[in-house]
């Protein structure tokens, strides 16, 4: 049974045992839209990291911090707009609001992680919500990645204002997304599933003059 009740809250493992085909939020874009290949002239590279585990944590920072450190080995970013990664860079915790964080882990880890966090958190008031099916992570790299972002969001992405280790929710085109700076050379975008096709088209359009390439 995939459902386990932790006290008074139901958890749910969304993943099947069998190998079932999955479709990412960008599947319509990739299947039916334009998918320009990366070339040596591409000054922006777009790459989806599909099917990761995405969890929303809600609650007090002190309580959550202890549990997250214990379970994930990452300190909960306490300062606004913080982004913390583990050594491998595969797991991250991002500040979303004073009582809300986004955890991203390799796909399939999220349910076990949720259980371990719940075990660690006990009776405190908190919430953990699996949103893995609702969003996808995309990375943008290349010398013109920042300029592409400037076309799309009014957030100041200058390195002095948007250094490594920062993550923000921003207006992007006429939609919104989460913008992260996990490393010097890479930006990450977290797209909402239903807006993914629009955002993809927006990014391709904005990136056309930089010969944007898409790696699937």
């Amino acid at each position, binding site marked *: *049974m*995939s459902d386990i*009740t*932790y*006290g*008074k*809250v*139901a958890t*749910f*493992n*969304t*993943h*099947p*045992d*069998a190998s*079932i*085909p*999955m*479709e990412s*939020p960008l*599947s*319509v874009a990739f*299947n*039916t839209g334009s998918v320009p290949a990366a070339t040596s002239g591409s000054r922006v590279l777009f790459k989806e990291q599909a*099917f990761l585990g995405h969890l*929303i944590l*809600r*609650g007090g920072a002190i309580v959550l911090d202890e549990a997250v450190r214990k379970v994930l080995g990452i300190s909960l970013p306490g300062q606004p707009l913080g982004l913390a990664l583990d050594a491998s860079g595969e797991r991250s915790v991002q500040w979303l609001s004073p009582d809300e964080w986004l955890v991203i882990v390799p796909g399939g880890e999220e349910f076990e992680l949720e259980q371990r966090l719940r075990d660690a958190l006990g009776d405190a*008031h*908190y*919430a953990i*919500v699996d*949103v*893995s*099916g*609702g*969003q996808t992570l995309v990375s943008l790299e290349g010398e013109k990645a920042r*300029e592409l972002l*400037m*076309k799309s*969001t*009014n*957030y*100041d992405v*200058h390195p002095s204002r948007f250094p490594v280790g920062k993550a923000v929710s921003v207006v992007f*085109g006429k*939609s919104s997304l989460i913008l992260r700076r996990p490393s010097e050379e890479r930006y990450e975008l977290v797209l*909402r*599933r*239903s*807006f*993914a*096709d*629009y955002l993809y*088209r*927006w990014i391709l*359009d*904005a990136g056309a*003059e930089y*010969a944007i390439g898409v790696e699937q």
Partner: protein
Amino acid sequence: MSQVNRLRQGGRIDRARTLSFTFNGKRYQGHAGDTLASALLANGVDLVNRSFKYSRPRGIVAAGAEEPNALVQLGSTEAAQVPNVRATQQALFEGLTAQSTNGWPNVQRDVMSLVGKLGGRFMPPGFYYKTFMAPASMWMTYEKYIRKGAGLGRSPMENDPDSYDHLNQHCDLLVVGAGPTGLAAALTAARAGARVILCDEQEEMGGSLLDSRELLDDRPAAQWAEQVISELAENDNVTLLPRTTANGYHDHHFVTLHERRTEHLGETAPTIDGVRPTRSRMHRVRAGQVLLATGAHERPLVYGNNDVPGNLVAGAVSTYIRRYGVVPGNKLVLSVSNDHAYRAALDWDEAGREVVAIVDARRNPDGELVEQARARGIRIIEGAAVLEAKGDKRVSGARVATIDAAAFKVTGQAELLECDTIASSGGYSPVIHLASHTGARPTWDDEILGFVPSLVKGVHAAGSARGVHDLAGGLADGAAKASEALAALGKSASAIEPPRADAIREGQACALYQVPHEKPTLRAPKQFVDMQNDVTAAAIELATREGFESIEHVKRYTAMGFGTDQGKLGNINGMAIAARCLGKSIPEVGTTVFRPNYTPVTFGAIVGRHCRELFDPERYTALHQWHVENGAEFEDVGQWKRPWYFPKTVNGKQESMDEAVARESLAVRTGVGILDASTLGKIDIQGPDAREFLGRVYTNKWAKLAPGRVRYGLMCKDDGMLMDDGTTSCLGENHFLMTTTTGGAAGVMEWLELWHQTEWPELQVTFTSVTDHWATMTVTGPDARKLLSEITDIDLDREQFKFMDWRNGKVADVPARVFRISFTGELAYEINVQANYAMHVWKTLFEHGKKYDLTPYGTETMHVLRAEKGLIIAGQDTDGSVTPEDLGMFWAIGYDKPFSWIGKRALTRPDTARKDRKQFVGLKPVDPKVVLEEGAHIVVDKDQPIPMDMLGHVTSSYYSPNLESGFALAVIKGGRDRMGETLYVPMPDGQAHEVEVVSPVFIDPKGERQHV
């Protein structure tokens, strides 16, 4: 074609690159570096347009953004047309094609000019308000002919082949204007390490330095500019934006900069390195501080026939000579009120053409430039001005006389000077537009005879923009103000050491705006103030006589300053004339208010990429591609694309919507159908107080809903009106999953947070949107259980899994939550799976569904089915004025809940408590073939004359293949007491449909089918 006015040398044009262009059908040549205006002047083209109202011949007056006359229609193809391009700001490119915006059949021989000549007198300001009133019925006819004269250029009639984009920029200091002041400011800030944006509207940065006679550090001023620009270009923190106009200042230092990226290259964007750049780009700049180094516009003098081609502002003459190597005439009369403008005569003289005279309004002018002119033997007529220009399509002479400016009269005998060019200068108006976009009113400065900007915190003006007109002063001021601006940001920047400029001693200017004439203004030759709108000094005088005393009234009555130049040349003169007429001073008459844009901006640039397929996001569900592949027609619901219906093609003919809906809805009632319900909003709610919270925001009770159960809820605003509805499931004691309407999802989410954060923060509860995480598939119809049982491990036994229960399990091997709720009235299961697996589950359902003829249906069938069952759609059957009581949903109103839930109190207000409010009912047309029109109104007496007393309206109406009849839902005054009554629905054709008021539940009133 020879460039008759092109000097053999000089100017910043590239003589090696000759460019051909066409103006009014004739081919000409110019050079790279020319503007269209300089190229036309080089070719001796005097007449470039006809005026708007009087069709008078007009020539080029200025050299920049202030030009009122030289507006052209650009473009050789229909799609490339651009109306009203200022020739003074359009760079010349190979093949440029332009024509005058006015003049028929052509600008040389304009039929309307006759009307202008004869009718001019009959068209004073306010002309339209005083005529065309009789007979009343004729106005539309009169107007039709009036409209024929409307407009300058024309809109393209084909779609734009170019694209546009935005770039969001941030900086510490935005410097507007790259003349001496702006360059000194930018350099100061850049050397201090600040993030700097420097923009300039011209093709080339440098501003007045590009045509200056002065030396900086003993070198031509332009060389200093080049050196500074190259230093700035090297600096990573500096963004240089030439060809970029700062058009609007919008609160908190948000400034729009319009960069013309390709307009100097061609009429449409060319392909460069395989990429077609956007035609223009809007930089949306958020600056820490803003420094306006926007310079000043020279004011022409207002004298008789000052609009005849060959009349220019003095500075423009210098610009054309020094920057473009073009001298726009042979014999010059220069009429001035100040020293600075003497440069025009010196430049003209050096170009080897004749300066007939300098007419100076001052007695005994004695500045250095005056001395230089004297030394060259140029005749200077003191205490005098040009009263009137002579000539028709080109100046042929200037009537000059001594005047008493203060007494506004001509004191001497007029002398006619033969000339072909009159240049004038009445002083310099700081360019304060951006500063006044903030709403800050500028103030008049008697010292500089101009308005200086009032500045909001963080906006600075420097140099000419605040009346510091001399070069050395402007350089120092730019550096100092940049340093001040950065200090306001807590950054220290020492002002750069400006280059050495030789101070030129200038005499005091005198105040002269309108030049007196021997005849009174109303009888004198037309003295133009605003050339683009044909506003004369006489018009202003007349307006003041008629009681228009506020400058705003004068402007509106005469249309002064409403042109595409926004009165850059004329407004101050106009105000001075109004002040003279009213016997007041200029500041008493009022200040001038400018609005964005500084110069007109292409719609496309403001729109950016938010057009066509990117106009608004299209939201897709996880099953979107299947819907497309299976021929769905889509309905726009909010931003979502939802399948509307799935037409089948039978014998090569595609079903109509009615046919498809009939088939789909019968399938659900008799077999099994499937709907993609993923767009419904879904909110995960957790916390010990989740249940209490639900009880406060929903009208009904939540205290006892057990895990595994689902309940329908109504949500009101505190005015008692329904805002949304949906089901909420109890997942655990402290855990709920709320659903909302598709359109209401974001609003409900914010609503819950609003109440939690601002009213009840003590409640321990959290809300998280999971709309996109889950895909929702509704399998419904009598065969739903059979179908689902084939691919699920959930026990679907009717006793084990009841209506309004939910269960966990696997569907098509994928973990799923299945909710037994029904929006069709049939047996129904809503299957929720993680969206990445949705397509697999959906397709598996169809594999197994073949034998049941599983039928996909869309929103239209969904609407029919729910309406048959009397279920509302919030937003369709309700409109913001409907309470739960109006809907008759008393079963969903917890009157006795301890907490006064949102909306409860409002229900007892006198109007909300009325018994005869519009109430939700069903309507059955007496003729079953009739399908009532949604939105039609209902009356008691079909024969009542108009206005009729309306009881209410049809909110939903369909043909039901199940009922074999049309049926409708409606809201009707006192409807619940009207059951069985016959009412009428009057139609535009005079017919009235007879309807019976019935229960809104048309099918299975006992609910047996959904419980099977």
